[in-house]
């Protein structure tokens, strides 16, 4: 009887031990020769211009594959089209996890979609290195397997407010925004920061997704005579707003969020006229075609799919892929999800050579990037990167 109990206990111990060992070495998506990487992002729909970020991430993996891969394994990249739509995003996350069985996810564009995908990815325990979606609630409070390798909307909201009040005499700040979670992610920290400086927004105006006219919004803003406007809009509506602001000679300096690409917005507007006086959050060390960015500029340009145009957005995520590759390199051949997460938590002051500032994670902080600049035209009509109003970063 006693022997039987002992035997049973041993069996239970062995089984639990095996299970624990299996759990401690989750190698889903890893073979002798490949590492499966999933990249969700909007490849179709009105926000498909953000898909450039997906191709940027893919380019980095293609480049490292041509360099021989990482420790004898090459990357197999699977792109999932979320169309910047929450329901499609959830379906893509499920597919990447259950059907494609990726080792990790390195993507996420459109914060609303990323927030919808978060519970699915978190529950599956798949490491997710967020490449582009900026809402800080994706990775804060800390989720053990989710890392934000891009500046968040919290940082950007604060940075927008800082930039606005760095202009002398600015007291009256207005906001134009969407009424969605993404927009709130920028608006709340910006308003909080302004409150800390004793300022309240003089007006908050909304421009909803899909609207093709911003006359009412522009006239309302004109009416309150702001000194500066914080523009928290996605690219299609940003173009509509800037077009109408130009049409009605709004004449107020503006700073925009990370919901659009500067060059692509200008292309939509048919030229730089309506972009004058408009500045936008900028994530990189320097202009992408500057000598400082040449190395990665040429790499991303070389590995983009044929016909894909290189824009600022092509680099929005590339830094996160460089960090992933570096961490995987550090693991040697013994790659598992647990070891990857452990190594990500130890990544400290990692210079991606693309993102402004460096990436640092710890078990208690998964918001890895914080530094931001602003881009816009100077008085001579030259596109420049600024660290504050009138102060060039380069």
């Amino acid at each position: 009887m006693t022997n039987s109990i002992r035997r049973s206990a041993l069996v239970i111990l062995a089984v639990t031990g095996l299970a624990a060992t299996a759990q401690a070495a989750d190698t889903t998506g890893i073979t002798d020769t490949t590492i499966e990487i999933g990249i969700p992002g909007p490849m179709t729909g009105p926000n498909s211009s953000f898909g450039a970020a997906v191709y940027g991430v893919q380019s980095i993996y293609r480049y490292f594959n041509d360099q021989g891969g990482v420790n004898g394994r090459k990357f197999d990249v699977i792109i999932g089209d979320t169309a910047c739509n929450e329901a499609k995003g959830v379906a893509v996350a499920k597919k990447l996890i259950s059907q494609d069985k990726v080792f990790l996810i390195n993507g996420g564009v459109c914060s609303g979609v990323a927030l919808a995908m978060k519970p699915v990815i978190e529950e599956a325990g798949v490491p997710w290195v967020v490449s582009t979606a900026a809402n800080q609630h994706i990775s804060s409070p800390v989720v053990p397997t989710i890392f934000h390798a891009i500046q968040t909307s919290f940082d950007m909201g604060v940075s927008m407010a800082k930039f606005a009040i760095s202009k002398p005499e600015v007291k009256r700040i207005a906001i134009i925004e969407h009424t969605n979670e993404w927009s709130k992610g920028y608006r709340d920290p910006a308003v909080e920061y302004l409150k800390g400086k004793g300022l309240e927004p003089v007006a908050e105006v909304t421009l909803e997704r899909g609207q093709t006219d911003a006359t009412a919004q522009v006239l309302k803003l004109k009416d309150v005579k702001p000194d500066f406007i914080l523009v928290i809009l996605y690219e299609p509506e940003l173009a509509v707003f800037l077009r109408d602001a130009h049409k009605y000679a709004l004449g107020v300096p503006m700073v925009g969020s990370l919901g659009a690409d500067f060059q692509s917005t200008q292309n939509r507007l048919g030229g730089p006229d309506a972009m004058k006086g408009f500045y936008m959050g900028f994530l990189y060390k320097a202009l992408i075609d500057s000598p400082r960015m040449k190395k990665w500029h040429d790499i991303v340009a070389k590995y983009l799919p044929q016909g894909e145009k290189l824009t600022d957005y092509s680099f929005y995520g590339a830094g996160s892929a460089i960090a992933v590759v570096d961490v995987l390199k550090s693991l040697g051949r013994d790659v598992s999800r647990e070891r990857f997460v452990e190594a990500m938590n130890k990544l400290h002051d990692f210079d991606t050579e693309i993102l402004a500032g460096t990436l640092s994670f710890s078990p208690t902080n998964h918001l890895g990037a914080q530094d931001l600049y602003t881009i816009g035209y100077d008085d001579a009509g030259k596109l420049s990167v600024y660290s504050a109003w009138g102060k060039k970063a380069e």
Partner: protein
Amino acid sequence: MRAGTARSGESMLAQLVLSGISQGCLYALVALAMTVVYRATTVVNFGHGDLLMAGAFAVYVLVIFAKVPFIPAALLAIGLLFATGVGIQHWLIRPILRGPHLSLAMMAIAVGYFLRGVARVFWGREVLPFPKIYPDKSFFLGSVVLNSSDLVITGSAIALFFLLWLLFAVTPVGKTAQAVFQSQRGAALVGINVGAFHGAMWGLGAAMAAVGGILIAPVTLLYPDMSASTLIRGFAAMTLGGFGSFPGAVIGGLLLGVMEMLVGGYVGSRFIDITAYLVIILVLLVRPVGLFGRQVVVRV
């Protein structure tokens, strides 16, 4: 100070109304084209927005790839969309004409999504600038600003409304449409080729979609989903004006455009987007036949 504020208030009102009229012309065009098809076939073409997109893309392809000058390209695109409309009616609508109305509406939606899908295959990630033949200039009426797009949209829409009025009020087409709308069997008995008439009206509706696409694309730019929000507003305009009423479609579109602007300017910009839906709900509750619609009396 007060006089200045009052002047600024008047100027804002005038600006909102004028911009609303320009925007409303686009809604009216969509509503009018849907009304043409509805009057002839009693089908609400929920795929109309995608025909509008297809018309704009047809011009783009002809101008950019085939190097056809803009005006001939626009005329060709209108002709192509007319043929597409006739084809849709002949091959897709006619076979299920005797089925329930829901099937016809679903077919229209399916055709729309198919067209959008095709566009996505080629331009899924592109937002393309539409070729423009007029310069982007602003004009001032006192303190009110109008730009060339406003004038082109409003002018073209008015010209089209006049042409349609001529077609339906002066030529026998109007009476034929009325006869077919009242009773298809009756119309056939008096010698009207109902099938051909249906085809022509689907063609006309699609050709008008092309005109709408050509007018709206410089404003929204060109991408496969460009017409999604315009369609619902066109439908709201049609509901407000009264199903089947041509003047109703025009007035409904203009009213909706102006209402959206006034709501945005004086109530709150977050309500602009729901104005069209509110209009649909209120009209259906308060006056289901709309402003100019008539109650259909069925004699038994």
